[in-house]
């Protein structure tokens, strides 16, 4: 990448800089979630049978549905970013709305799952009535709630940001800095999706054949 602000035009400089900054931030986020993945690795390798049993308490159909929703939201977000680069303001607003709606749907499904898990008594420390593989199930669900909870917080921030970007596009203008903002919002959104892509098999697909 060129050294100084003078080697390329300001427009390109700005969008490349914004993109670099967001990728640096995503690197920090990946390290943040990474610590959780180490904890998961520890728990699963120390009691694979217990973790397998515990994971059967998750709701694989809801989890799979949610994965499909989030992957689709990445698709619509990518189309929003593409539209912003082509100056298609109306199309961008539409795709941002759909993305936010899909993200909200994900959070709603997650809420339903959490409610079910509460009723089923698998919330360690708060409402835990499991009788078999007690320790493994407690640890598994401790990780599940922390991981999916932190993920949900990130997604909620994403939804708010996407809605805010859409709201700012009310005025009939799509200036270059708005395009950059939508681009980096997209990068953040896709990252949150990519994290979920790993959480899904780790929590939902451990042992579905037993």
């Amino acid at each position: 990448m060129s050294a100084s602000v003078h080697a390329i035009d300001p427009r390109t400089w700005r969008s490349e800089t914004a993109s670099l900054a967001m990728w640096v931030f995503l690197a920090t986020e990946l390290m943040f979630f990474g610590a959780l993945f180490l904890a998961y690795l520890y728990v699963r390798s120390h009691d694979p049978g217990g973790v397998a049993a515990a994971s059967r308490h998750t709701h694989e159909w809801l989890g799979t549905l949610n994965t499909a929703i989030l992957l689709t939201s990445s698709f619509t977000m990518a189309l929003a970013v593409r539209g912003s680069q082509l100056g298609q303001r109306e199309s961008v607003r539409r795709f941002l709305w759909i993305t936010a709606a899909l993200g909200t749907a994900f959070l709603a499904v997650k809420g339903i799952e959490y409610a079910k898990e509460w009723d089923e008594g698998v919330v360690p420390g708060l409402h835990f009535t499991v009788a078999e593989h007690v320790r493994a199930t407690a640890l598994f669900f401790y990780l599940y709630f922390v991981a999916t909870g932190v993920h949900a917080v990130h997604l909620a921030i994403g939804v708010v940001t996407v809605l805010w970007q859409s709201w700012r596009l009310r005025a009939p203008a799509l200036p270059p800095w708005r395009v950059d903002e939508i681009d980096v919002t997209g990068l953040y959104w896709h990252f949150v999706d990519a994290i979920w892509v790993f959480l899904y098999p780790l929590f939902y697909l451990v042992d579905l054949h037993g």
Partner: protein
Amino acid sequence: MSYLSEGYTLRSWLTTRDHKRIAILYAIAITVFFFLGGAAATLIRLELATPAGDLVSADTYNKLFTLHGVVMVWFFLIPSIPATLGNFLIPLMIGAREVAFPRLNLMSWYIYVLGGLFTVGMLIAGGVDTGWTFYTPYSTMFSNTHVVWAVMGVFIVGFSSILTGLNFIVTIHRMRAPGLTWFRLPLFVWAHYATSLILVLATPVLAMTLVLLSVERLLHVGIFDPALGGDPLLFQHLFWFYSHPAVYIMVLPAMGVVSEIITCFARKRIFGYRFMCYAILGIAGFGFLVWGHHMFVSGQSMYAGMAFSFLSFMVAVPSAIKVFNWTATLYKGSIVFTAPMLYALGFVGLFTVGGLTGLYLAALAVDVHLTDTYFVIAHFHYIMVGGSVMAYLGGIHYWWPKITGRLYNEAWGRMAAIVIFVGFNLTFFPQYLLGYLGMPRRYHEYPPEFQLLNVLSSAGAAVLAVGYLLPLLYLGWSLFLGQRAAPNPWDARGLEWKTASPPPKENFVDEPTVDTVPYQYDPEARVP
């Protein structure tokens, strides 16, 4: 019209986007925390002047050394050079008008203050007694102090670090002046770039670890306590994965400062510039591979211990290269013993002692004897205080004319540097001996045969305290009555010296261009 006169109201300072003003906001805040951590140290050394635990109770003593560690590591050392000197100088050194994200910069200061308030609140509410390392299961299960509160303060201030690092990385990549290629950058900038990589990659791991610790303490379920099916070493792996690179966050910027000062006051180009750059990157990179040397006696596997021991020996190599190169820079230089130079030379000597004793600790068998003794305490204080704090003070003095537009009194500056050097060695050298002789760390009482060395150490701490107070006096005095400074009072090289002292808000009247490597000094030239 300098950046200092662009608005005199408190509001103009608290809503500033000027990296130079933000640097000063940080400088004030970290000074407050330095003296808070120093107050804890004073009480510790007072208690340790006598063998009996007669000044404070054991519980209070635990809270004192915890406070000292938490405040000094996270609220003083980690931000010190980067957030003050780094923020002020990096845009100047690269010929830029600002950092890449000025508002993010201001936000990082507010986040720092918020974390600080959390921590002070926790202190007032009764403190925390786990040690700055928060080891489990004591912190999660057994401590009756404000663990979650303390940990949340550290969690918050971590985001300040991350934002600073992010800003520096993007600024250095994207905002260098025309002609300023990577191998024409001052080593101060290289050092802060490497530090920023560590800031952004290591700090988030600590953040998540502290979240997990808090959940475990609050809900009594988790992965760090064998009673719950967990492993205390998992906490230690995660904690030290951050906290070892953190010590390089504390020392790399100091090394950057030292390179600037030594070249200026030896009037000589740095010896082996490219190797210095590679060494900086090597320290940052290798620094991520050695954390298990904090866990040699923890129950960690012996084979992992061997791997970490070997890697810890490797990480000494780039540091040694830097020490050799500073020494070679001094050789046949035209040396002037100004206050900054005294601090920089002190750094080289004391860092070398601290670094060599690190090798003792990296040797597995020797560590079994020395771990958790005062030898370890002496080792890291030689590096962090004899090293980083002295470099910080050296940098403050060196760039004081640039930052404030005033000259400090050189005689007082030299005297304070010598008082600090003497006080420091008197405080900490006896601790190497105490540790070797077997005095454990974190104990408020000890067998009577250790008293002489402890009294020497406490006496040294008194001298050191005087040394640290002196700059407050004469630097403060210079702000009002000091002689006004020219743009380049030291006849130094570097872009920051090509603008007024203090600089205008936009840093440069005309954007500079660069066409040479740095440190164009000539030791043969007559000093005017």
